[in-house]
């Protein structure tokens, strides 16, 4: 192979690497699935989300909405936003101060169900969609009996 060809190949490689250098890699796709909104309208999905909430050890950090290691979910303070699309992103991709990412452990549908259940904790869903009394030790009023928290603060 002539040295001219070698130089050309090297140049081409450098140029291609340059394209790679400029490539944007995002942490994940934005949560703009309009169908996602529908999960919080459905009592079955909210109930499934509640089961996942226990199974995935969410209670270990967020308790039954009151928080502990992680922030409370039944109040109206939202560090990363309280709209269902924002909650979905927090669960799917995780957050840097300790929230783990669940995208490799749960299906997309399960993450939407979890997000829908989180919305019910501060009663941001309809009363007849939010879960009723727990089978386990009572931690306070059932989701359906809670007052709706004050209007959402805009996400930071």
């Amino acid at each position, binding site marked *: 192979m002539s040295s001219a060809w070698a130089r050309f190949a090297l140049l081409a490689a450098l140029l291609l690497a340059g394209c790679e250098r400029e490539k944007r890699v995002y942490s994940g796709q934005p949560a703009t699935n309009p169908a996602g909104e529908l999960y919080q309208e459905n009592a079955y999905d909210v109930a499934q989300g509640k089961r996942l909430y226990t199974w995935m*050890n969410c209670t270990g950090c967020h*308790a039954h909405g*009151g928080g*502990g290691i992680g922030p409370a979910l*039944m*109040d109206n303070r939202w560090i990363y936003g309280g709209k269902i699309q924002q909650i979905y992103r927090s669960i799917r991709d995780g957050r840097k101060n300790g929230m783990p990412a669940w995208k490799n452990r749960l299906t997309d549908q399960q993450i939407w169900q979890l997000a829908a259940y989180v919305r019910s904790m501060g009663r941001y869903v309809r009363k007849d969609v939010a879960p009723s009394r727990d089978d386990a030790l009572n*931690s306070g009023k059932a989701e359906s009996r809670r007052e709706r928290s004050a209007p959402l603060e805009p996400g930071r």
Partner: protein
Amino acid sequence: MRRVATIFLVSLLLTNAGSAADGEWPVASGSPQALRFSDLTEINTKNVARLKPSFTFNTGLHHGEESATLVVGSTMYFVTPFPNYLYALDLTKPGAPVKWKFDPHADPASQGEACCDTVNRGPAYADGKVVMNTLDGQTIAVDAATGKELWRAHLANIRIGETLTMAPMIAEDKVLVGNSGGEFGVRGWIAALNLKDGSMAWKAFHTGPDKDVLIGSDFHPFYPQDRGKNLGIKTWPADRWKQGGGNVWGWVSYDPQARLVIYGTGNPGPWNPDQRPGENKWTSGVFARDVDSGQARWFYQWSPHDLYDHDGINENILVDRDWKGSPRKLLLHPGRNGYLYVLDRTNGQVLSAKPFVYINSSFGVDLKSGKLIPNPAKHTQTGKTVYDICPTAAGAKDWEPSAYSPRTGFVYIPHANLCMDEEGVQASYIAGTPYVGAIVRQKPGHGGYRGAMTAWDVAGEKIKWDHHENMPVWSGALVTAGDVVFYGTLDGWFRALDARSGKLLWQYRTDSGIVGQPVAYKGPDGHEYIAILSGVGGWIGAVLTNRVDVRDSTGANGMASAVPDLPRRGKTGGRLYVFRLG
């Protein structure tokens, strides 16, 4: 003459105790034997009412300030909660300005792996080096004079829920460090690093095969239930020991004569006991190990097959004193399960175990077999709520260390008075997430108070006096040769009690709640000072620092219902207070 005799007696006792007789506070526990006793007498019962703040220092942080403030030479050292800044304050200058500040650049993700707030219990000092732990799992040595990093060792992995919150302990040329993470299905260990370069000298796990636990031919536990091959595997269902806990996040004591490292192990994981039938060795117990090899000498299990998150990590106070007419080498341990244990520290035999709080979860400790006698009516299990269990998951007493005065012969125990309801639920192991399996609701205990400072008479095996507190006491204790006991409260009071009578002699309201460790030292001006970090936090303080919504009684693992009033009683914010006679 009497005064001279007293001084002679005290100095005799101190030589025995190995305390810093020159007025320094070089180790978090005051001495390797963990007495938290200062031989300084300038501040005493007669004049303590004249204490005034000498200087304060704002850390600018809003989580639990649990660090001890070490004083070596004319410099004070302490570590903040995450991001774990290490400060050196120059005590020779007015207002004690910052001499240097070291930032370890800890990973923010570690905040999500800390069960009980993002705390740090303080640094250690030896040979011109200050050694600290970081929440994200590193042990770092810096030059005490300049604050320049000398070495760092990455020991714990936050991806599986391991963190470091304990104060390292330096014994001989070894730095002893243990991991936190008993609520994350972590396998507990203690490691000894070589002080000179941070390389690993030995590491012992607290579950699994004998070779991992460093159990060999030197191991001679006093009771037969602790003898046998590979009990760290056999006392667990298949493979459960791999997530079994037994962490070392509390206090390490050192007996220089015997060259023994003595420390407790944490709770087994998960809390739900139905998921781990067996005695779950070597969790919720106490080990004595050879400092050079790490080989275990003896072990005793405070809570076999623990049912209540009763870690065994509380302080072990090593004293040589009379016991029923003969001099003995003792170990005093106020346990999370509510008993004040007196052990023979040469072999691990239990000499006494009497309750220092109201207990209904067990009936006592059988001194013949050494076994805790559980109350079957309070046995927690999956799918069943058991009401009114006393003490709670946080224990009769949590990590907050007691003090012992050789002058009075009393142990000064800061503690809680709480009970709880608990239901076991199936916990799934998912690496890096909490592995607990219990729904817990804590509440005030009997008697209309939620905490106390209790003086325990070791010889009489009974409570000498109690000073009740409205809220659980989460601060450590200090006792001085001036016969004054110091500690702080969750609502911010820093108090001084008479060590003999328990009478309140002086108090000062700090800006935030106190969960720190008071220390006494002699300043460069020759005067005695008392230092305490204020700044609410820890498991209980998380109700305030982490803005728990107390409508959920299980918030912060049940602390929301124990102190629902904390958010309105106090505010967050770290500040060091140093007092002297005015």
